[in-house]
């Protein structure tokens, strides 16, 4: 494919370009394991969601979109920052945050990543520099701000924002692209273009087909690729992260991919009729995990036994996470004031004097003067 967009990808049919040539088997194995773990995790959450109705939390599943999070998990260190949109689970795990904290958060438990206050679409894990938020596009500009912070202090870190293509409908996204390009910020913008904003396709929302071309016109380096080829995605993200860290400026990556599940919740929303079964089938045939496994098997880098063992370990972790989440207590702290404002000010205590107010003179001329 020379021009990459949703149409050309569908026309091309089954993807045949995934290549392990020159790839490091250890890295590839980790990418594979990450995708598998994320897939199983999402499938398990989806299975458990309704029958039990214990989560009572809006959830956006990312089944079919495992490649970008996998590539990020491989390219980012703890020092880097990652900002996610509402479809957050892959990003959360990509930053190495614990699955059990995610599950407990979705269950609204005290042991959740945010004590149950945030839920799936606003989850964060500050200790590992992972943040998210449900309002579209906002986090892209915030990521640029974090990149500014590190640039100002000459810290060698990359800041990544991951989001769907509909974030690029918003004006703040373009303010951000301009700002990041202008200041050459250490920023990587990763757009998972799955063509849909809930049910609405790109063609109903944007006048041109690819976002990358517009970003390039704004003066930022931009890369377009088939987002289910985890090897290519990893190479692009690794390069971009390295460019950011080494002061070479920001990169925009548009990874074309597809969401298998409904927009929201575990149910399919295909009855709405916004996409065709053929389209869904074509993308399922280009499953990022299957594409990689095909190549791995061809190279003899993955045996059935290995996979079985891997799945076993993953499933145990998932099971353990469920039982952790379910048995954890609900939060009981309802001191609302404490949750919204700080009651400490260590820096002000250190740097600022307390001065008596007596200095104010109510009779001083200005107070009694006319004219303003």
């Amino acid at each position, binding site marked *: 494919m020379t021009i990459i967009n949703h149409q050309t990808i569908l026309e091309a049919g089954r993807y045949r370009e995934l290549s392990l040539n020159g790839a490091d088997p250890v890295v590839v194995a980790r990418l594979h394991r990450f995708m598998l773990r994320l897939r199983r995790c999402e499938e398990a959450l989806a299975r458990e969601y309704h029958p039990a109705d214990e*989560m*009572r*939390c*809006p959830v956006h599943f990312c089944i079919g979109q495992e490649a970008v999070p996998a590539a990020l998990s491989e390219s980012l260190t703890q020092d880097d920052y990652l900002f996610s949109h509402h479809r957050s689970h892959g990003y959360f795990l990509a930053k190495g945050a614990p699955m059990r904290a995610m599950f407990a958060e979705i269950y*609204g*438990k005290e042991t*959740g990543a945010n*004590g*149950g*206050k*945030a*839920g799936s*679409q*606003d989850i964060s894990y500050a200790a590992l520099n992972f943040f998210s*938020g*449900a*309002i*579209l*596009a906002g986090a892209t500009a915030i990521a640029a701000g974090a990149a500014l912070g590190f640039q100002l202090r000459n810290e060698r870190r990359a800041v990544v924002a991951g989001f769907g293509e*509909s*974030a690029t*409908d*918003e*004006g*703040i996204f373009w303010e951000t692209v301009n700002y990041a390009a202008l200041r050459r910020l250490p920023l990587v913008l990763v757009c998972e273009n799955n063509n849909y*904003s*809930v*049910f*609405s396709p790109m063609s*109903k*929302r*944007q006048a041109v087909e690819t976002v990358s071309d517009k970003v390039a016109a704004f003066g930022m380096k931009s890369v377009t690729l088939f987002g289910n080829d985890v090897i290519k995605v990893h190479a692009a993200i690794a390069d971009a992260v390295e460019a950011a860290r080494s002061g070479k400026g920001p990169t925009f990556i548009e990874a074309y991919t597809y969401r298998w599940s409904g927009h929201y919740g575990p149910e399919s929303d295909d*009855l*709405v*009729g*916004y996409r065709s079964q053929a389209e869904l089938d074509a993308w399922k045939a280009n499953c990022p995990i299957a594409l990689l496994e095909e190549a791995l098997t061809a190279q003899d880098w993955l045996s059935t036994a290995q996979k079985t063992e891997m799945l076993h370990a993953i499933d145990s972790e998932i099971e353990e996470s469920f039982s952790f989440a379910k048995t954890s207590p*609900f*939060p*009981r702290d*309802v001191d*609302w*004031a404490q*949750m*919204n404002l700080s009651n400490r000010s260590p820096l002000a205590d250190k740097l600022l004097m307390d001065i008596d107010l007596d200095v104010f003179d109510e009779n001083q001329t200005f107070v009694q003067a006319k004219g303003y």
Partner: protein
Amino acid sequence: MNSTPTADQTCEAAVPPAVRKCSYAEAIGQGLAQAMELSDRVCVLGQLVDYKPGVFGTTTGLVEKFGPDRVQDFAVAESAMTAAAIGAAIAGMRPVLIHHRLDFMLYSMDAIVNWLSLWRFKSNNASALPVVIRAIVGKGWGQGPQHSKSLHAWFAHLPGLRVAVPATAFDAKGLLLESIFGEDPAIIIEHRSLFGLSDNVPSRPYRVRYGKAVVRRKGKHVTLVAIGIMVPLALRAAVQLAAQSIDVEVIDLRTVSPLDIDSVCESVAKTGRLVVADPAWCTGSVAAEVIAAVCEREGRNLKANPGRVCLPDSHTPMSSALEEAYYPNEDSIVNRIVTQFQ
């Protein structure tokens, strides 16, 4: 044009032929469909308004009847969408904007404050903007901090806007129609939890006026003013309190701008007591405005200090356990009123 039933047709027929039992969501859909039939100047803009789910059922069937130009799916660009509605109104249209969550409106605040609210004023009454913004407020099932804000106090503070918070299906339809065919910008705050409630709704297009509160229940001992989702809670609380021989007068404000303080004062002059139930953060709430405005006129005649039942001054937690602590319920109202009699 095609056979998809309109909201009107789907409503189940009730006793008087002109009135049908409808849900709040159906009443809104009916209002929209009738407005669009009454005038081809009316159009609907919003994300996903032209898909079957139709913004919780309120726009289902419209695109089949009125086409994708007048029932227009919009990009995720709330800022331009609102400005576009303003421009369309300048060009003579009567657009209705829809936000699945009020929270998403925050991107459009410049358009609302710096253009929409002051257009008539700065044109010296030469140009008007009949733009209607429907904003839905989520509650429960972990809506969390970014899907649950009810900022009616903000909009009530702004000059140049009409702001409605309908509590019944009847009001939802009547205020929507009044807004669409009025001459001012209007913001309608719809509490999602009310969408399933049924009410008797006249089939014909009718109006509910701004600035006219309604007494939902007559009583002698205390005036309980309620807004939006707090209205049914207030009525339930009134039943509980009746059992304790406290006779509660429940006033549904219906619109928070203009505010019908006269009606509240009239009631307070009779009861001597005031409690306001407002589904918003306490500090700076419309409840505060009601109390202040009443006290400016009737303060010295009160038999007890006035009171509020609001949300705590905190963002909304996701966890169901915290939600339970966060949202006031009818017991909160009962308890607040009981203290006035101690």
